């Protein structure tokens, strides 16, 4: 183990790393990736619970904090808020219903059901006053009526203050989707899903690819033939078809609805590119003097492979990890769109897929949020991959 560690240590303090550390863009990208990892980790340990991403946080398709709402939408939103309280106030056990009423951080204002009902009726009057107008956006008179209505609606609820209030405004800061769920919280939760999928599938793929590729390159002969046959086979099926066939393999099985079909599909199609690259690199390394020296000392072939050859492909493993991470995040979106990806959980793919219908109505908050969150992470990984390639693999086509 110590020799592996020192090889990794050498890798981290080597020339490539020093070159990487001078690359300011790469450092920014690393910092961004670090923020995403922290975010994913804190969502993973319970920053957001299922209620935050599945329960209603407000009316449908509310635009975010700096979005412009037209009068029509403000009116229907007010109607929604009034109806919620009215339904609770008219329930058979009104007192309990009112106490239990909450969505997002809002709860009903304190008061007996009769008091609340009076407030509701008052709000309906204000509502009718606005609804009598046909054109809601031009007239300043209507604007003031709308403001009164919204004040009355606010009176129906006990707005959270302090920390809870901050959470509440955060919850609505990017608006709500078609089912009234918080877009920001769903996008944040999706970060966890994306990071999870990216890390698991990229890590396993790189490990499989490295082991098979290194074995093929080092041992040659029938091992090499087998590995080359295996990856030629997998890579002769168009990538998206392979993903679909693999993901649909699990349908109806015990793993349906979990992320396991996604992992399996990604790992089985992603191991090919690291395998190919590392096989080529190991074939070169095999002929170097230090490897011959090791075998002259009498080290076994497995030991040479594990301790002297594989650690020297670390840079390729890092580059491939970074590239496959991007691949996994993008492929997740496509698989989720095709109905074979993430289920029972929000993810950027699920969000973009749901946003199709909203886009047709001119509502861009959900697709925008998912795209932005994804863009920043993928961009950071793209920059990092380029920098890694520049630093460690200067001959690679694609570097400057």
């Amino acid at each position, binding site marked *: 183990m110590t020799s592996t560690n020192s090889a990794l240590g050498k890798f981290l303090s080597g020339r490539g790393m020093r070159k990487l550390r001078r690359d300011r863009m790469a450092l920014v990208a690393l910092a961004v990736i670090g923020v995403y990892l922290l975010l994913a980790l804190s969502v993973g340990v319970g920053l957001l619970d299922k209620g935050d991403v599945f329960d209603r946080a407000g009316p449908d398709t509310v635009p975010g904090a700096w979005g412009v709402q037209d009068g029509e939408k403000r009116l229907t939103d007010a109607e929604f808020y009034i109806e919620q309280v009215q339904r609770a106030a008219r329930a058979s056990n009104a007192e309990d219903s009112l106490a239990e009423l909450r969505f997002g951080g809002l709860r009903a204002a304190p008061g007996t059901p009769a008091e609340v009902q009076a407030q509701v009726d008052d709000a309906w009057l204000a509502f009718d006053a606005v609804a009598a107008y046909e054109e809601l956006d031009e007239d300043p008179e209507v604007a003031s009526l709308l403001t009164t209505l919204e004040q009355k609606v606010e009176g129906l609820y006990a707005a959270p203050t302090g920390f809870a209030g901050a959470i509440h405004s955060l919850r609505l800061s990017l608006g709500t989707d078609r089912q009234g769920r918080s877009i920001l919280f769903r996008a944040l939760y999706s970060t966890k899903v994306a990071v999870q999928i990216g890390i698991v599938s990229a890590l396993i793929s790189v490990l499989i690819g490295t082991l098979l590729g290194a074995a093929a390159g080092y041992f040659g002969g029938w091992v090499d033939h087998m590995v080359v*046959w295996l990856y030629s086979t997998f890579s002769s099926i*168009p990538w*998206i078809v392979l993903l679909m066939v693999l993901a649909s*393999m699990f349908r109806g099985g015990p793993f349906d609805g979990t992320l396991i079909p996604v992992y399996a599909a990604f790992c089985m199609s992603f191991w090919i590119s690291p395998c190919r690259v590392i096989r080529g690199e190991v074939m070169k390394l095999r002929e170097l003097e230090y490897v011959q020296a090791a075998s002259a000392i009498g080290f076994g072939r497995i030991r040479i492979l594990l301790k002297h050859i594989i650690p020297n492909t670390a840079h390729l493993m890092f580059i491939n990890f970074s590239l496959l991470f*991007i691949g996994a995040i993008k492929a997740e979106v496509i698989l989720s769109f095709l109905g*074979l990806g993430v289920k029972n959980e929000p993810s950027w793919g699920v969000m973009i897929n749901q*946003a199709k219908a909203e886009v047709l109505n001119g509502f861009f908050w959900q697709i925008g949020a998912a795209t932005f969150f*994804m863009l920043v992470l993928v*961009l950071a990984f793209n920059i990092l991959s380029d920098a890694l390639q520049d630093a460690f693999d200067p001959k690679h086509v*694609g570097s400057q």
Partner: protein
Amino acid sequence: MWSYIARKLLYNIPVYLGILLFLMLALRVNDPVHAFLGKNATDADILDVRAKLGLDQAFIYQYFDLLRDVLTLDFSVESWTNEGLRVSDMLKRSVIPSISITVPALVLTSIISISIALISAFFRGRPIDRTLMVMAVVGMSVSFLVYIIFGQYWGAYLLTREGSDLFAIGGFEPGLANWPYYCLLPVLISTFVATGYDTRFYRAVMVEESSRDYITTAKAKGANRRKVMFVHMLKNALIPIITRIMTTLPFLIMGSLLLEVYFNIPGMGRVLYKAIQEQDFPVVQIFVAVFAGIFIVSNILTDVLYALVDPRVRLS
């Protein structure tokens, strides 16, 4: 040359046999008949469907059955969801829609991205090069699906709502006259997305090529920069460029699955997607087997053409 071709052919036979094996195993992890007929199917129904397709036989017999069908190009099996429709007809019908999107998209993408790459490589390191490359990287970081959604929204949906009938929101009609209406928008979206990837690759190829000795020689002999760029370099950069274009050819048949699904274009990608959704086992099996076959044949062709262009390849 002939021995090279023979070697390539021999080498690819076990690969194709492997694909069939893997495909058949993957499709049998869940009993396809059970999945298709659902929970309420009677045992008699299940046995009947199974016997019809030969699924009750030993795996090895099924394997050779499929192999024989592929070798003789006999795809007369009927689809499960479209009764009476043979898979061979489905294949024939869906080729044209697929190709009418992918071929124009490939041509457009290649022309545009090679031009941008040339500009970028010519102005290497200058602001224009940097801007183009930043645009390419940022563009690559957005999901294809987002481009499709917004492309359809802006290109077709908004225009249609305003009364102009420039592009269809979806669907397909054969015929050249109908092509722009149904296919141009998907082609443009596909081109836009692919240009980002290809430009980066082509620029890298050209930058690599521009550091070779023959370029230094040409410059030393006094050839002007533009001539070195477009005459000496482009000619040599064409080899990797042609390789890249040729390696994308097999994917043309497959079509742009996402575009076809989103725009309701009845191409091969969409047919396969629907078959997977509806658990239409015979269609999935044969479509994937055919894709892989086409892929391998065109791979061999690419290798042979490449060997013709570059004699060094034959020796390795």
